[in-house]
Each structure stands twice: as C-alpha cells, then as structure tokens.
C-alpha cells in the first residue's frame, strides 16, 4: 500500500504542473498583455495612467520576457501567495478568492452530501428491484436529471419558489440576517437558502451516481460469490448488504474523482443564475471583463481543489479495498 500511496502522490505533481500550464494559457489567451489592458481601462475610466505603476507591474510579472520565463515568474509568485491583481476589483486576486471560496466550498460540499445520500440508496433500490415499476420510474427520473442543464433547473426552481412563496430566492441570507451576527436564526436561514442551490448543483451528479450504483450492483449480483453466500443460507437482504454493496462501494468511491469536477462546474453556473456570493459570478465577470489574472487563478484553484478531492478518494479506496492495500 505504501508504494501505491507514494506513486499516487507522485502522479499528483505532473498533473498539477499540467493544470498550471493550462491556467497560464488562459491568462495569456486574450490578445495583448494584461497591463496594456489595464492601462486602456484606466484611460477609459478617465483615470490618470500611472506610467511608474505600469512599469512596475511589467517588471513584476516579467512581461515582455519569453513565455516560459513569464510562466516561471507566475508560478514563483503563486508559491509565495501572490496570485496577481484583479483589474476589475482593483484588489489582489487572493483576497477576492479567499472571500468567496469558503462559500463555494460550502455549496459544493452540501451538493456532494446530497449526491451521495440520495444517489446511493436510489441506485441500490433500482438495482435490487430491477425491471420493476419503481426501477423504471427511478431510472427515468435519473435520466431527466442528467439531461437538464443546471441553469435551466435553477431558473425553473427559482420561478417555482417565487410563484409558491411570492419571494425571490437570492443570495445566502435573507435581508434581516444579512448583516446580523451568528445566531440559530441566522443558521437556519442559511440552511434554508442552502438546500435549493445544493440540490440544483447535485442533480446531474446524483443522476450519474444512480446509474453507476445500479450498474455496478447488478454486475456484482451476478457474481458467483453471491451464489455461494446464498447457498450458505444467508438471507437475501443481508446477502446484498454484505457482499455486492460492499464491492460496489469501490467503483463509487473511485468515481468521486469524476463527480467533483461536475459539482464544481455546477456550482459555478448555479451561483451565476441564483446570484450567490461565491466564486462563480466572479469568474463570469472576470471573463466578461477580461480580468485574466483573476479568471486564470480561479480556474487554477478550482482544478487543484478537484485534484485534491480525487487524490483523497483514491487514498480512501486504498484503505477500504484489501486488494489495493495488499498490492494485488
């Protein structure tokens, strides 16, 4: 298992580098460098363009040097915690991200909980009751969930919520709690605002998980060791809970790595539609205003977080699967 973990950790490094290259490419993608864009924008706003500042920025980010040098400088800065400066917000990128990232994580994590707490039991049910009405209904609902774009779902739910309550579901807190200090009331208000977005973010993931759980469980149910256990006189329900479920958990855990990117994507688009104070709307605005340092950094951070999640799921797999643990 040690060598598995070490190998897994070592794989992490080239993947990180690749992701940083992609993020850097995003920053570099629009024509012209960002300082020029900044100067143009300052001019457009009617501000005085400070030549010294411009030159200082050029020197700091190595603009004008070959791309690979700029990349190294950028990476070096990041390692020191400097993600660059946002033009639109006129703030260090790291500050903006730090303000918003916790909320993004909160939503993604809640969605993650929803995905697994809904997806697994439903997938299980529809496998055990294969070809029953229940199976068809659940599978079909799952398909619909998979087929509906997140933003559409968000819009429809907002609309339904609005029609039903006459209130708009926007933001994380209701007006009365927005600036209040923490209390139970505020906490419940948060929960109240949390579950709908989390549900929306998790829909596609849940639907995907249902299919995976169902398929894996059906596969396992056909295995000979299930027959062996049945021949021992084990009851059907214990048999399913003990053997196939135990084995179907492995692919489900290894699937976390592919649920996470979907959740992050879902979080971005849902936040934009609902107007949550998370990273999503910032990313959109950064892209619209070509605030590339901000955009690139966000892509970098989201990707790295996903990678870490994948890493954790792989390590978890090593812990629960004796075959990996014993290096088979």
């Amino acid at each position: 298992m040690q060598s598995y973990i070490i190998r897994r950790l070592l794989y992490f490094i080239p993947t990180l580098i690749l992701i940083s290259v992609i993020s850097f490419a995003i920053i570099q993608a629009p024509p012209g460098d960002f300082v020029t864009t900044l100067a143009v924008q300052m001019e457009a706003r009617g501000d005085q363009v400070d030549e010294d500042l411009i030159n200082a920025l050029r020197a700091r980010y190595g603009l004008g040097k070959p791309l690979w040098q700029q990349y190294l400088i950028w990476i070096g800065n990041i390692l020191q915690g400097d993600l660059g400066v946002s033009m639109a917000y006129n703030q260090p990128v790291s500050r903006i991200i730090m303000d918003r990232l916790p909320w993004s994580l909160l939503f993604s994590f809640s969605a993650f909980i929803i995905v697994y707490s809904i997806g697994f039991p439903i997938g299980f049910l529809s496998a055990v009751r294969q070809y029953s009405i229940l199976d068809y209904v659940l599978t079909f609902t799952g398909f619909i969930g998979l087929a509906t774009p997140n933003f559409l779902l968000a819009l429809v739910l907002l609309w339904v919520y609005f029609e039903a309550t006459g209130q708009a579901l926007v933001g994380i807190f209701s007006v009365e709690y927005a600036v209040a200090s923490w209390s139970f009331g505020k906490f419940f208000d948060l929960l109240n605002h949390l579950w709908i977005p989390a549900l929306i973010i998790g829909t596609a993931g849940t639907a995907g998980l249902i299919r995976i759980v169902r398929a894996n469980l059906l596969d396992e149910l056909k295995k000979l060791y299930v027959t062996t256990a049945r021949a021992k006189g084990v009851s059907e329900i214990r048999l399913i809970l003990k053997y196939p479920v135990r084995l179907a958990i492995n692919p489900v855990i290894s699937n976390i790595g592919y649920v996470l990117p979907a959740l992050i994507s879902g979080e971005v688009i849902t936040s934009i539609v609902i107007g949550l104070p998370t990273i999503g709307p910032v990313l959109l605005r950064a892209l619209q205003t070509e605030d590339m340092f901000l955009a690139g950094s966000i892509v970098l951070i989201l990707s790295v977080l996903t990678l870490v999640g994948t890493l954790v799921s792989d390590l978890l797999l090593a812990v629960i699967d004796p075959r990996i643990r014993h290096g088979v």
Partner: protein
Amino acid sequence: MNSDSSPNREWLIDIKDLHVTFSQDDKTVNAVNGVDIRVHKGEAVGIVGESGCGKTVTSYSLLNILPLNGRIVSGEVRYRGGNGSIIDITKLNPRSREMRKLRGGEIAMIFQEPMASFSPVHTIKDQIAEGILLHQPPKDKKVREKIIEYLGMVGISNPERAIDAYPFQLSGGMRQRAMIAMALACNPKVLVADEPTTALDVTIQAQVLMLIKEMQQELGLALVLITHDLGIIAHMADFVYVMYLGRVVEKGPVATIFDSPKHPYTRDLIRSIPKLDRPEKRLATIQGNVPDASRLPSGCAFHPRCREIIGEICRQTEPVLEEVEADHFAACFLHSPKREIEPGTGESEIVQQPQ
C-alpha cells in the same frame, strides 16, 4: 451399493421428474427435462456429462438457487429432514426461512471456481463465520476457534494465519480447501460438489478429491459429485448418473457403468477418453457435436450422433429409463423390450448424413 432395490435404505434426497427451463433473449432453453435422482445417506452419487447436459442446473435446483432467468417448471425435489419430515424443496419460496435453513445447514455446496466463489474483500474468517452463526451458533467454543479447527481439518497449514487472510492471498488449492471447510463447518448431511477441481492442477485436484472423499467417509455425508471427468467419477462415486442434454440416459453402480455400459452414449464416452493405461494410436470418437440445448433433437436426443441407431423409433420416440439388469437402468431402445425392430435395419447401422 444399490439404490432403488433395497427398501430398507432411506433416501435423503429424491428428485422426481424435474424440469427446468431458462429464458435467454426470446427463446426458452430446456436445461433439465425430466430427471430422477435419488441420494441415500452416506452415499456418493456421481453425475457425469458434457457441457450443457444440465448437471449443474440440477445441482442448483437442489438448493433452489437457480439464477433469475431459470425456472423449475415441474417435478419434485424432496428432502428428508432429521426428524423424518419430508420437504419438497420446489414448493418452498426460494427466499423463505425454511429454504434458507436447508441451505448450508442440511445441504452444503462447493463450487467450481474457488477464486470467484469467495468475496475478494472479506476475510476467510468473515465468510466462514457467516454460515456457522446462521446454522450452528457455537455454545462452548468461540467461532474463531471452531473455524481454525475446521481449517486445520481440511489440511490448511497454519490455520491461525490463514483465517485472517483474504482469498487472493491463498493459492487455488488452499482456497478450495477453505471452501470445503466452509461447507463442512455447519455439519450438513449432504455435500454437493459442482466440478470442484476443474480449475485446479492435476496434483492439487488429487489432493482436494482425496480430502472430499476422506471427509465424506469420516462425517458420513451423502455426496453429490458433479463432473465431466469419468476418471474422477470412477474413483469417487458409488452410484453414477450419466446425463445427456437434460436427461439421465443411464444410471447404475459405478462398477457396472464402467464394466458394461448399456447406453451408446456412455459406451462412446468411455471409449473416447484417452487413457493412460491403455494407449491406443487412434482414439475412438463420438461423431458430431453436442447440439445446442435450445434446439433439442426429436426422439432420443442422442440419435443424431448414435452409431447404434435402430431406426425411426429413435428419431421419433423418446426412450425412458428401463432396468437392463439389477439396479442398472438405461434409456435406449436397444435394451427396451418395447422396441419394434424394423425389418432391414441392423443394430450397428451408422447414420451417414450428407456433409
């Protein structure tokens, strides 16, 4: 050993006119077509046949563990319990408590693939303990000790270590031994072994077979051994059933079957296997191939391959098992008093179908 002729010997299992079908895609496969098998206390019954003859399906019906697409259409599988009560297994709900009490507790089974028969993520202890706790919850001893005892009994060296191993950490032979320990741990009366050594090497196969034989005799078990290997049958079984395409074509005590086989299929089968002790340059063969079980030939299912075909009767009428000598039955018109020999046909006519 004898079966039907001695009324004093009590049977443990009595299969009567069993029919099992499988649905595959749109077609129905008749896997077992009217099989009668009787197993007595302490007796080793061998069921031999080639692929698709229905021997495995028959063994699965004993425990009512057919896969979802399989169905017992008719017939009885009766089991005589310890208190003399007789239970028809086919009448039980496969999920019912009574059925589950029989499985493992009264009738235990070992399977062909020792690797696939164990869950790869549970320890040996975990999997053996399950049956024990279900059927024989120990009073005085701890489960662990009991398992170690059984593992030692089946010849696993260092059972204290093997008990905590995962199946993939054991060799094929050791896994099959653990499988046997698992089957025996609940003190069953009948042991059903479905091709228990097919996946093993010859020398390991010999060890495992010896172990099964030893355990059977020591514990006074009835053994139902299913195999395609006549060599194994010759040395393991007391009474033999030969199956072809879902039917029993011949049955009798093991010596009789090998010394004077009556059904042309049995005869050909015995002649066609290469033998160490009788090297021949050229092997006798059975012509043709085993037909697909979804399209059975009419009449006697063996007639398209039979070199002793009599005539139309073989193509049209299905022969039934009839006693050819004491305790020895064959389903063939060659030995039936009912057959009408058509003029101009000899017993050794060989069908020569156009190629």
